[in-house]
């Protein structure tokens, strides 16, 4: 329904944030020198942090859409820890933090209070990492969905509890090494399951809007935030944000890794309305699952000291299943004009 409109601009299309030749109205919010910078400089996120970047992209867009009438509720996690060490704050937006697991409930409360005051113009976004979403906050989040609170809940998924020392979460992918799923003896990292598929758990609540996105595609992410903010009720956005520290990747590779995750089929980018998938972002340049795995230290044990072909093949099978389930290759890939 709301896939990104790519302009037929042949030099970069609209894959890049903007362009000197592009009508400013067609450029991304992030290309605007007047963007809000909801999370400003001086925060203590690691070099190349995907979460800090995605949070700015999401909130700057939400601020643009709401004209600045926005309240943000933050769960505990990296995003909260690195942005608000006492007495500093990086937030240039009305921002609340309570506990690790109660962000959806607090956000629902804020929305209810605003509604009671007749302030329907002020919108609410709640945000958390994958730990605060799929583990600790899941009960509250499910309740928020079930009540239909007028909140956009954004999960920045970096696959673990990173600031406390890289412990596994229920969003840690299979066979990834974490501090609590180490490589020792016969242990091969995280268990082989797929964890909690939070986007589809959200869809099962039949809320008006669920979408996934990554920090590799700014235009797509901004479009989804705009779409979500255009709707009322409980909405859920799941954003894949690689973590250089936890994933064992160079800080300059954050976007590349997220791109590989989508292009190898492991992370499906899609939208669902009222619990039904309405749009998927097709794979544009198909990547090899092994290329994605090899680029990350948390999967090194799959290749060294000897290749664990059985485990790699299991992950490849998961990618194939996801591609089939969402039709990531079947969709029309001719997004560019072939002739002028």
């Amino acid at each position, binding site marked *: 329904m709301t896939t990104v409109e*790519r302009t*037929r*601009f*042949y*030099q*970069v*299309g609209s*894959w*890049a*944030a*903007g*362009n*000197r*030749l592009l009508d400013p109205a067609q*450029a*991304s919010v*992030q*290309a605007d*020198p007047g963007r809000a*910078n909801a*999370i*400003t*400089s*001086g*925060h*203590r*996120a690691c*070099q*190349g*942090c*995907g979460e*800090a*970047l995605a949070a*700015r*992209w999401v909130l700057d867009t939400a601020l643009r859409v709401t004209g600045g009438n926005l309240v943000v509720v933050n769960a505990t996690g990296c995003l909260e820890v690195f*942005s608000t060490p006492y*007495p*500093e*704050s*990086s937030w240039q937006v009305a921002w609340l933090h309570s506990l690790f697991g109660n962000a959806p409930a607090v956000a629902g409360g804020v929305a209810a209070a605003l509604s009671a005051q007749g302030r329907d113009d002020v919108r609410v976004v709640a945000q958390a990492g994958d730990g605060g979403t799929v583990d600790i906050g899941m009960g509250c989040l499910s309740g928020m969905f079930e009540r239909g609170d007028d909140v956009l809940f954004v999960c920045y998924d970096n696959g673990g509890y990173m600031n406390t020392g890289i412990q596994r979460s229920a969003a840690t992918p299979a066979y990834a090494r974490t501090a609590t799923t180490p490589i020792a003896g016969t242990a091969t990292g995280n268990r082989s399951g797929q964890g909690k598929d939070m986007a589809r758990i959200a869809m099962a609540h039949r809320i008006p809007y669920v979408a996934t996105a990554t920090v590799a595609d*700014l235009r797509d992410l901004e479009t989804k935030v705009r779409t979500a903010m255009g709707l009322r009720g409980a909405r859920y956005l799941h954003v894949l944000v690689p973590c*250089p520290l936890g994933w064992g990747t*160079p*800080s*300059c*590779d*954050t*976007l*590349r890794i997220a*791109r590989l995750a989508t292009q190898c089929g492991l992370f499906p980018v899609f939208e669902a309305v009222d619990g039904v998938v309405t749009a998927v972002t097709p794979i544009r*340049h198909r990547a090899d699952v092994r290329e994605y795995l090899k680029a990350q230290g948390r999967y090194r044990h799959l290749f060294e000291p000897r290749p664990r072909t059985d485990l790699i093949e299991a992950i490849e099978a998961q990618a194939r299943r996801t591609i089939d389930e969402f039709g990531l290759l079947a969709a029309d890939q001719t*997004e*560019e*004009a*072939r*002739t*002028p």
Partner: protein
Amino acid sequence: MTTPLPFAVTLDVGSSLANKTGTWRTELPLYVSNRPPCATACPAGEDPQKWLYHAETGDYEAAWREIMHINPLPAVIGRVCFHPCQTSCNRAQLDEAVGINAVERFLGDEGLRRGWTVAVAPPTGKRVLVVGSGPAGLSAAYHLARLGHAVTVREAAPKAGGMLTYGIPSYRLPRDVVDAEIARIVAMGVDLQVNSPVDDLAVEAAGYDATFLAVGAQLGKRTDIPAGDAARILDALTLLHDVAEGQPPALGRRVVVYGGGDTAMDAARTARRIGATDATIVYRRTRERMPAHPVELEQAEAEGITIRWLSTISQVDGDRVAIEAMRLDDSGFPQPTGQTRSLPADAVVLAVGQDTDLRLLDGLPAVTVHHGLVEVDPTTLAAGQPGLYAGGDIIADQHTVTAAIGHGRRAAAAIDAYLGRGGEPVTDDRAPATFEALSPWYYSDAPASVAPQLAAARRIDTFDEVVAGLTEQTALYEARRCLSCGNCFECDNCYSVCPDNAITKLGPELGFVVDTDYCKGCGLCAAECPAGAIEMHPLVPAG
């Protein structure tokens, strides 16, 4: 803090801007301008990325002026150049090379159509003689005139242009285009004298402060082929010259061309146009080893020209030629096999190379001529005699129009310096912009637009131009396919992907600046720059 605060009071929130995270940094991003492969490849010294950057905006005049900084004949070069820029274009690794040559032609034609002119510097009072009005001579004359020198061009032939006029067939290069671009140079104050051969340079260069010699290689080489009295043999340059003069020789229906270069292609295609129904090219080696440009070969074959590979002419007799089959030895050199066959031929055209006539240098013992070529300094093109420079087909280099343009420009810069003035820099010392440094993800797929071609059947009996130009719309499309290798084109990616908001966007044409107070040196801006125009540099400890 002056007053002690009571217990458990709420403090105002401070900003994280107090935390200068720039101290974490071990590498610093730097915006660079690297040399794109098209610029490295251009024998004339053009930097296509630079002018495509202007063409992308639709500012064709700015693009044209950028070209004219280097090349005074864009409408000509846009037609006859074999575009090594496109052969080296990084975009070829994505889909297809940018049609740089076609855009240049569009810009050149646009310049002629709109009558754009180039400013001339105030007179310097220096006089320079240019001998020869081919592309090298014209280029030197243009650049010297632009710099304010008084230039006299002496041309032996009745018309200016050298090989542009007398060597390249008009179906590849219409004469009105050549004439118009020459007229623009003359209008800059260049004194162009035709029918004015220079026989003794030592005498005739007196009175000039410097001389550029570019008389070209006007003589068609002959080769020893046993031939009977009735044999009709002529060389390709004479054929092309006579056709250009409007006096095509009678060749008959069946013409055999001997040679494998572009001149052989031109000769065979010209023969078809003046009435030969059956034109055959005989070449000693294989298709892979043929020196002719693949485009020329492809167009010749499309026009119905037969090519006999691994063949040589062993004898010409009356209306037949004997063709001997060759084979390549281990070193790739063709060796005779003794197997011959006979082919009907009313005429044989030899296209086996060109020679120079440099007798005009006899009075200048300081100039060295070796194998028919003038020895020059490879950078300045100085020819041994103070104040004398040489270029074009009489020096050892590529013998193409584009290379000649480059010679003229380099010699003009050297002459300018010799005459005690600045001398424009002609070298580009920037580091190469490699494909590996690009982030191709961001470029959308856009295959090249191919300039439409006249149908082969229509073109064989006409000297109409074979390749048509781009329209304004397709030229713009093509220009925007440029990847801008190694140079920022303000896509805003660096500004948007910095997790620390440490890049400031200065505005259109002003670029970006890194805020060293907060840049943690993560390298995302460099990694996600489509054009590879940001490089991470390790910080060197102070002191």
